[in-house]
């Protein structure tokens, strides 16, 4: 049922081979490019449903490839790179990457990220109810239910949770969350975010110390994931 088309832009033949086997055996159609130039041409001639992009390409920096893609390409882009510094990751997310996975990676994790990115891009903007596992968020009525029981959230908690849930599977950076929920004047007040994330976890997670919905991306931000993913 997948049949989504994914373009891999990576200069390492071993990684391309691994991705090809992993993705094809999970019913995705795979296209490949070994450098930035071919990657951009392939993407333009035959726009895929998703792109997996390496940052360390021989002919051009992956970040600038990402910027060029984002001038017209709106489907998900997942970065797959050995670069693991917070700066690189935040920069890629700011440049429009939907997600970022550091090499070495687990294939299970990669497939989960691909699924949620594709699901997100397929989500209709007009949907008013978001369902993730046991949690249902009604954006119109502004209510949250867990296992059909209402959960009381404060206005700020609701804004934060609905923003995370609308972007299910995607990492939202600290700065982005602070700007969207509290306003541009708060982008350096990361302790606010810590407080409210801790409170939300107490309300929606089975064990707030071992969260299954709101996942921390150290030094980068938070990601909301759907349990059955």
């Amino acid at each position, binding site marked *: 049922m997948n049949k989504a088309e994914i373009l891999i832009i990576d200069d390492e033949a071993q990684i391309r081979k691994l991705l090809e086997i992993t993705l094809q055996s999970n019913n995705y159609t795979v296209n490949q490019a070994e450098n930035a130039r071919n990657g951009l041409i392939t993407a333009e001639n035959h726009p895929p449903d998703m792109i997996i992009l390496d940052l360390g390409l021989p002919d051009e920096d992956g970040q600038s490839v990402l910027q060029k893609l984002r001038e017209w390409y709106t489907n998900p882009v997942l970065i797959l790179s050995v670069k693991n510094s*917070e700066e690189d990751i935040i920069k890629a997310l700011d440049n429009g990457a939907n997600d970022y996975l550091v090499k*070495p990676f687990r294939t299970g994790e990669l497939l989960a990220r691909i699924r949620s990115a594709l699901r997100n891009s397929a989500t209709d903007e007009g949907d008013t109810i978001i369902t993730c596992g046991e949690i249902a968020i009604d954006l119109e009525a502004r209510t949250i239910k867990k296992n059909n029981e209402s959960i009381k959230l404060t206005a700020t908690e609701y804004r934060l949770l609905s923003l995370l849930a609308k972007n299910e599977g995607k990492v939202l950076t600290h700065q982005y969350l602070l700007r969207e929920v509290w306003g541009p004047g708060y982008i350096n007040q990361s302790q606010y975010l*810590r407080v409210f994330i801790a*409170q939300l976890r107490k309300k929606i997670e089975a064990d707030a*110390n071992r969260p299954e919905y709101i996942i*921390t991306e150290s030094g980068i931000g938070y990601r909301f994931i759907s349990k059955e993913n």
Partner: protein
Amino acid sequence: MDLFINKISKPNQLLISISVVCGISALCYSLSGYLDYKVVAFILLLTVSIVAVLFDIMPVFVTAILSALIWDYFFIPPHFTLQVGTTEDSILLLMYFVIASVNAVLTYKIRQIEKIGRAKEERANTVKLYDTLLNSLSHELRTPIAAIIGATDNLQSNNHNLTTRNREELIAEISKASFRLNQQVENLLNMSRLESGFIQPKKDWCDINEVIYDAVKRIEENNISQKITVNVNPDIPFFKLDKGMMEQIIYNLVNNAVQYTKEDSEIDIIAHCHANALELIIEDNGKGFPEEEIDNVFNRFYRLKNTKTGGTGLGLSIVKGFTEAQGGTVYLQNLKSGGSRFTIHIVTQTSNLKSIKNE
């Protein structure tokens, strides 16, 4: 004696020598009613000798010349003039000067020999360190690589002789080996970050509870048999720390405990706030560290004697490096009840925003 020279700067050595000579001279002068001026010469010569043992050549020479002049001016009759009355006194003064100078030159030579000896010793130590490094590294990197190559060879060319169970086991070995390889590379990269000296902690507000559980989650992914207990007061404030470093510190300490304690041992992680300082304790109920080796465990590439193979001796030195980079200290002690306790203490900003108004 070496310590003395290394600790005191040359200008200070000079200053100390001059004041010592002047002080002793003043003392002798005030006692000149009781002391013959020839005895004063011996006292001053003794002073020069002591200075020569302690200090570098320059201060010793200055002391020698100064004390000779002082002796001549204040003690050899006629007083308060550099003139020397008798031939005998002239010979004494000359001998005084020669002996003092010989003192200085001999000191200098001994220092040179010491310096060469030290350089040799340092070089030997460096060579030893690199040998240890190469041995443990080549072991730690080659073992998992050997496992991967061996297992894949079997799967490729011996496939028809393998049972399904064999194949599954080989695949599990490949997975284990690559995990181990990845961990060693991670350690080496962290170490080189520390060695480069450019490491700057990126401090931001940290929910220490979250940091601990993130590290614990990473450890528990390896299917460990030890029981990890976390004990953090829910009202503990936020601390301004480098979250990545903190997570690595906790991971390495707990991982260390996991590697070197028996199955089903208990590992406790405790965090407190003590007046603007985070105190983080990781203790286990294993057999502890040999007392005589405790001072060395944080050294790079140090491995406990008679320990099982595996490990590069990098984990704990990274703990120390990351703790100190954030201005903290790490301390290891054995518990009376058995087991060991690591205590991390970092003074930093705290924020009690947990009671923030929830609108």
